[in-house]
C-alpha cells in the first residue's frame, strides 16, 4: 500500500463546525492534519482568546480527532487562534506539505469519485492522492478532463493513459477507472455539473488571477454548488 497522503482538514472549531458525516470514511487511508482554528476580531488579542477558549477548543478537537482515527486515519491536530483564517490555513498547509485540502461537506457512502485532471503539470501529486486514498477501496474513480481550445480528443486520451498507468502501478484496479471528457467553456461549471452524479470530487488548485479575485477560486465555486466533499490538490511548495 502506498504512503498515507497528507490531507489538511480545516475546521472552525468554536463555531459549531464539525467533521461532517462520511468524511471520516472518505479519509480513512489518509494522514489527516486536523486544523482547528478560531477567528477572532481585531479588538481581541489572540492570547486573550486562548486563555478563555483553549480548554473548550481542545476538548472539541480531540473528539473530532477520535472520530477520524476510529475510521482508520492517522491524525495530527493543531489549534490556532488567528485574526485571519486564510493566513492560518496557508501557513499550516505549507508547514505540513499537504497533498490536498478538504473542503468538508457531508456525504453518504462513497461509491464514485470524480477526479478532475487539468494537465500533466501536478498530475504526480494528484495520482499520489487518489492512489493513496482509494487504492485498496471498492469504489469507482472517474477521470474528468475539460480540454482547452486547440486540444484534441487524442491529447485528452494521452493524458488519461499516463495517469491511469500511474494509478494502476500504485495499486488501483484498472476496471474501476473510467474517463470522461467535457467540452464546456467553463471548467468550474463543467466539474460542478458533472459532480452531481458523484459522491466526492478531487480537483486541482488554481493560480490566483484577476478572474478568480472577482469570482472566487474554481474549487470554491465547485464546493458551493456540489455540496459534497471536495479534495483540492495543492501545488508543491516552491523550492527554497
Amino acid at each position: 500500500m502506498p504512503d498515507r497522503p497528507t490531507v489538511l482538514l480545516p475546521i472552525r472549531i468554536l463555531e459549531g463546525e464539525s467533521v461532517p458525516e462520511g468524511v471520516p470514511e472518505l479519509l480513512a487511508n489518509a494522514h489527516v492534519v486536523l486544523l482547528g482554528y478560531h477567528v477572532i476580531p481585531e479588538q481581541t488579542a489572540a492570547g486573550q482568546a486562548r486563555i478563555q477558549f483553549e480548554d473548550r477548543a481542545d476538548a472539541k478537537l480531540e473528539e473530532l480527532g477520535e472520530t477520524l482515527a476510529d475510521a482508520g486515519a492517522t491524525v495530527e491536530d493543531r489549534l490556532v487562534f488567528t485574526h485571519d483564517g486564510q493566513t492560518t490555513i496557508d501557513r499550516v498547509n505549507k508547514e505540513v506539505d499537504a497533498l490536498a485540502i478538504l473542503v468538508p461537506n457531508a456525504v453518504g457512502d462513497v461509491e464514485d469519485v470524480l477526479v478532475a485532471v487539468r494537465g500533466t503539470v501536478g498530475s504526480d501529486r494528484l495520482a499520489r492522492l487518489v492512489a493513496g486514498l482509494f487504492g485498496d477501496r471498492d469504489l469507482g474513480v472517474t477521470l474528468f478532463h475539460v480540454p482547452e481550445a486547440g486540444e484534441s480528443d487524442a491529447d485528452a486520451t494521452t493524458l488519461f493513459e499516463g495517469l491511469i498507468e500511474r494509478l494502476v502501478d500504485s495499486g488501483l484496479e484498472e476496471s474501476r477507472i473510467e474517463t470522461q471528457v467535457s467540452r464546456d467553456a467553463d471548467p468550474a461549471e463543467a466539474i460542478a455539473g458533472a459532480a452531481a452524479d458523484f459522491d466526492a470530487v478531487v480537483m486541482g488548485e488554481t493560480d490566483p488571477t484577476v478572474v478568480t479575485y472577482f469570482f472566487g477560486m474554481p474549487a470554491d465555486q465547485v464546493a458551493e454548488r456540489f455540496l459534497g466533499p471536495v479534495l483540492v490538490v495543492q501545488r508543491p511548495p516552491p523550492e527554497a
Partner: protein
Amino acid sequence: MSQPAPEGTGQNVEGETPEPEPEAVTDEVTEHADAQLERTIGLTGGLAIGIGTMIGAGIFVFPGLAAVEAGPAAALSFVIGGIIAMLVALPTSELATAMPRSGGGYFFISRSLGTGFGSIVGLGLWLGLVFASAFYLVGLGHYVVAVLSEVGLALGAVPLAPHVVLGLVAGLALTALSLGGTENTAALQNYIVLILLVIIGAFLTYGGLDALGVFGRTRAPEPFFSRGIVPVFSTAALVFTSYLGFAQVATLAGEIKRPSRNLPLAMVGSVLLVTVAYALTIIVATAALGSGRLGTAGETAMVEVARALLGFPGAVLILVAGLFATVSSANASILSASRSVYALSRDALLPRRAGSVNLRYGTPHVALAMAGGPILVLVATDQVELLAEVASFLHLVMYGLICVALLVLRRRDPDWYSPTFRTPGTPVLPALGAVASFGLIAFMNLASILVGIAIMIASYGWYRYYAGSVELRGDF
C-alpha cells in the same frame, strides 16, 4: 526564533497567578503548549498603526496651539519631539525583537526592572492611552463643529460646549463599535492612512511652494523665534502627544509577522515620516497665516490655513482629512488601551476577568469598557492641553524607563535576552533618550505634572495592595 521570556511567579489577592509564557516565538506564530497564536499584521499594517495613531494629533489639532506659543519655531518643537521619539524608538525596537509579546513597553519593563516599575508603567500606559483618546476625541469634536458651521449649522443651547457633546458621542460610538463589531477593519485602517498621506502630501507640497514664494504671494516674514527660545521646549512637551503612536506598534508586538524585521522598520519608519510631516506643516501654516491668527483658530487652525491657500475646496478637504485622522487616532488608542488592560490581567496585576472575552461577539468587553468609560469622563472636562500633557507625561515615564531597561539588560546580558535588532550607539544614545524623556517632563504645566505623579503613586499603591507577591522580573 527568540528565547521564551521569563516566567512570572507569585499571586494576587484573588489567588490568580501570571499566565505561563509561550514555549516559543517564531516569525509566524507564538507557540503555546497546546495552541498557536497566528501573527497576522505585516509591515504595512504596522506602519499604518504607527502613522494612523500619530498623524491625527500633530497635523490636525496642534498647529494652532503650538504656533501661538512658540511662533514659527514650533516647527523646531516638533523636531525636538521627533528626535526624542527616535531615541526611544530604537531601544524599543531592540526590546521588542527580544520580547515580541503583547503589552509593549509594559512587558519589557516588568521583565527587566521588576513588577513595581512594571505596574507603574502598565497602569500608566492604560491611563495614558485613555488621556490620549480623550484628547483626540475633543479634537474630533472641534472638527465636527467646524464641518457643521461650514454648512451653516451652529450648535447652541446645550449645557456643554458643542464640541464636547460631539466628542462624547464619538467616544461612545467608537467604544460600542469595538464591543459589537466583528468586521475586520485592518484593511480599512490601511486605506484611511493612505488617503490621509496623499491629502497631506499634496497640501504640504502646495503650501511649501507657496511659502517659498513660487505663486507670487508675498507676506511680511515672521521671525523664526518670534516668542523666544524657552517656549520651544515647553511646546515640545505639549506636542509630544503627537509621538505616542510608535509605542502602540510595540503594544501589538505579539501579533506582528517577522517581528525582528517588521517591528524596527514600522517604529523607526513611522517616527521619521511623521516628524518630517509635522515640521513642514508648521512651516507652511505659519507662513500662510502667521502665528497670531493660527492661535485664534485653535484646534482647527489647519482648516483656515487650507482656506487661505486653496480656498473653500481646500478647507473642505482638510476638514474631511481631520475627521478621518482624529477618528483613527482615537480608535487606535482605545484598542491599545484595551490591549494594555489585557496584558496586565494576564500577569495578574489586574483581575483576570478584566481581560475576558465576550462569548457573543468575541470582543474583550470589560477591557474596552475600562478604556471607554474613563475616556468619556475626561472628554467632558474639555481640558485639551491638560489631557495632552498627562498622556505625554505617562508615556514619557515609560519611554525613559524603556531606555533604562535596555541599559540594564545590555549590562547583565541574561540568557533569555537575545535581540535580533541592536540599538546603535549604546550606552550613549539610550542614556540620552532616558535623560531627554524625563527632562521633557520638566517643561510641562504644574497641573499636568501633579496629575501624572498622582497616577504613578496610585499605580504603585495598587500593585502593593493587589499583587504584592507577583514577580515578573527575569533571572539575571
